[in-house]
């Protein structure tokens, strides 16, 4: 017999799932687990964060660069509620995360005991699955199911709430990984007839157009995507989270979709005759007004989540399938083609965008530095291969537009939720998830201050994260909307900032601030060449706007250049 405490069963289960990194923060209700963790220090690295929101964003960053499940620990009550934003973020961006929270002893449940919250109730809408465990003997099975559910199908966050008595209870430990759940079918059986229908549509199309999302990355289908694209000759555009699914310098890649995306891929959405969408969910930031979205086109939608099919855009052929399976099948049957004239249309509109927007953005005539030139130079210096973690706002849109993502899983951002404060902790996790890569966090002066305390985590865990602050002294994206849609009434968007360099130095992180164009290249070199964490603050144009832009409620075809 192998009789151990529930808390130790937690650790042994995690080790059985090959967990080597945990992001967490201790407290009363999870103390038995932390006590057990003490004996696993050699097998499992625990990163002590400075706030539980940091723990879950770090776990998300870790999951997204490593392809593994991110894990975090938090105590009951406030510890658990601090996870909620990250759970919501992971839910909407399909990130596999397992959170383990401590809970008050089971006899106290429902009594408003000290640090008791209904974590199961609160987290239900923002988890793929959650469970409360009140007996030590149920711990191993709960963890096995949690890992299986988090990582399979459309991935997502799972929360396990373990009462303190279950952590102290004794159990004959045995771990069996979960391989199936009766009510849950994560791997859809592809319908070959539908694939044939899709192929027939694509083969006869004059202007076929492929939109890809994060589903490609999650299915690890980059190679299959490339093969399909090159055989079919179809132009490809990407959503925010799909960036890098096809290297941005691929000749058939035509750009980034949506509100601040590129000109051609948005406009020509309303000109294609067959629209093939894979692993993307037609977010409103991508579609603009759905009543004026690709109405002329036959739509083929492929997704692993059946609930996404026909949710926003009705599909002529809706295929419930894994992106990798579907792409392989499509490639086999598709006719070789090169849609030269159609691609040329994208190139011509690209020229317009180059002239009207890109030229001035990357080679500005203004005295002040512009975000785009900073990102462009960073992209050149890292050859598009660094892991770029962005926060939320103008700098995020600029990074998405101007960083040339060529690497594998190198685009990490908060897409669906748009969580300011995501980037700094996510970058910590991203680096630990893929230590051989340079990790650059691009953050606005506003968002940086939402999770700035994680500088302490960088200090303590010695994580080599490059922090690039694009400081415009405004909550820039909101200010842009105020300028465009609220008569320039800058209501509470000007922000008084602390001295970021001094703050970084307080955490023993090397830091530099630049304000002049001449200093940019050298500063970026020092930043990238440093062997440790480094903060570079670049003071940029205060009241700049991100263009192109599709206004809320406008059609993709009405994208504005200025």
């Amino acid at each position, binding site marked *: 017999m192998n009789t151990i405490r529930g808390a130790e069963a937690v650790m042994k289960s995690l080790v059985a799932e090959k967990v080597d990194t945990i992001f967490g923060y201790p407290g009363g209700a999870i103390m038995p687990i932390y006590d057990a963790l003490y004996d696993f220090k050699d097998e499992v690295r625990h990163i002590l964060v400075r706030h539980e929101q940091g723990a879950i964003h770090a776990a998300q960053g870790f999951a997204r660069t490593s392809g593994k499940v991110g894990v975090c620990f938090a105590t009951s009550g406030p510890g658990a509620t601090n996870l909620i934003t990250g759970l919501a973020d992971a839910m909407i961006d399909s990130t596999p995360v397992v959170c383990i929270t401590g809970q008050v002893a089971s006899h106290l449940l429902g009594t408003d005991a000290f640090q008791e919250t209904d974590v*199961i*109730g609160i987290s*239900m*809408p923002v988890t*793929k*699955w*959650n*469970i*409360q465990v009140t007996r030590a003997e149920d711990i191993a099975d709960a963890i096995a199911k949690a890992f299986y*559910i988090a990582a399979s199908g459309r991935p997502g966050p799972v929360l396990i709430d373990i009462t303190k008595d279950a952590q102290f209870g004794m159990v004959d430990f045995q771990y069996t990984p979960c391989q199936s*759940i*009766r*009510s*849950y*079918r994560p791997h859809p059986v592809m319908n070959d007839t539908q694939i044939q229908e899709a192929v027939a549509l694509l083969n006869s199309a004059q202007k076929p157009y492929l939109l890809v999302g994060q589903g490609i990355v999650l299915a690890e289908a980059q190679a299959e995507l490339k093969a399909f694209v090159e055989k079919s000759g179809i132009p490809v555009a990407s959503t925010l989270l799909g960036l890098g699914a096809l290297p941005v310098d691929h000749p058939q890649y035509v750009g980034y979709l949506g509100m601040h995306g590129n000109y051609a891929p948005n406009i020509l959405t309303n000109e294609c005759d067959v629209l093939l969408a894979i692993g993307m969910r037609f977010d409103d930031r991508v579609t603009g007004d759905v009543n004026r979205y690709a109405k002329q086109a036959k739509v083929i939608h492929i997704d692993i*989540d*059946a*609930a996404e*099919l*026909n*949710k926003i855009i009705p599909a002529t052929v809706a295929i419930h399938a894994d992106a990798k399976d579907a792409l392989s099948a499509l490639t086999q049957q598709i006719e070789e083609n090169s849609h030269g004239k159609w691609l040329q249309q994208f190139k011509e509109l690209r020229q317009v965008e180059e002239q009207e927007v890109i030229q001035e953005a990357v080679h500005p005539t203004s005295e002040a530095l512009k975000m785009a030139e900073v990102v462009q130079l960073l992209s050149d210096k890292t050859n598009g291969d660094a892991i770029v973690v962005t926060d939320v706002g103008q700098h995020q849109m600029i990074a998405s537009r101007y960083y040339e993502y060529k690497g594998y899983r190198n685009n990490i951002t908060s897409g669906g939720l748009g969580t300011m404060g995501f980037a700094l902790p996510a970058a910590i996790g991203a680096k630990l998830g893929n230590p051989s890569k340079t990790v650059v966090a691009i953050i606005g002066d506003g968002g940086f201050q939402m999770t700035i305390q994680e500088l302490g985590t960088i200090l303590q865990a010695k994580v080599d994260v490059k922090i690039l602050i694009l400081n415009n002294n405004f909550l820039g994206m909101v200010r842009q909307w105020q300028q465009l849609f609220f008569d320039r009434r800058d209501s509470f968007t000007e922000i008084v900032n602390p001295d970021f360099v001094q703050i970084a130095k307080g955490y023993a992180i090397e830091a530099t601030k630049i304000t002049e164009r001449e200093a940019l290249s050298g500063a970026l070199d020092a930043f990238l060449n440093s062997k440790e964490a480094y903060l570079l603050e670049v003071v940029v144009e205060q009241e700049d706007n991100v263009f192109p832009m599709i206004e809320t409620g406008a059609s993709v075809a009405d994208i504005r250049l200025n």
Partner: protein
Amino acid sequence: MVQVYNISIFTENHIGILNRITIIFTRRHMNIESITASESELKGIYRYTIVVKTTESQVKKVVGQIERQVDVLKAFYHDDSQVVYQEIALYKIPTDTFMNGGSETIVRAHSARILSMEVGFTIIEKTGQPEELQKLFDELEPFGVLEFVRSGRVAISKPMKTLESYLAEM
């Protein structure tokens, strides 16, 4: 077109699953007209019948999102023409007015039955469609209805396969 839809859901017997299901309606600002839940013909599998008034495009999306839940085995929706459905109602009326007023003929005419008769009150039960239950209520009202309660709807669809055959496919 907005109309009545009957949603049938089969789930594992896990704590919180009802909450997971109702959240999906709440998020879409959709009102639940009635809800019933109990164990199905298969042990350990629970069956929910939820009635909503909405459009087909909405109900389809909701059912998709319900079915996506890990602990949900299967979910279906049907309009009223595709199901046979019933509700049950209990009526409590004072025994003396009941005895003296000839209300027994009413009960018989409605194919209702007397469930219990005590000195102070009599309880009548009727199963039927909501309008039928209401009609009996209206006719009993002059005798003084002390209490009235109606269940949610239970529905069985006409075309559905057996649950077992679905489980076998899974």
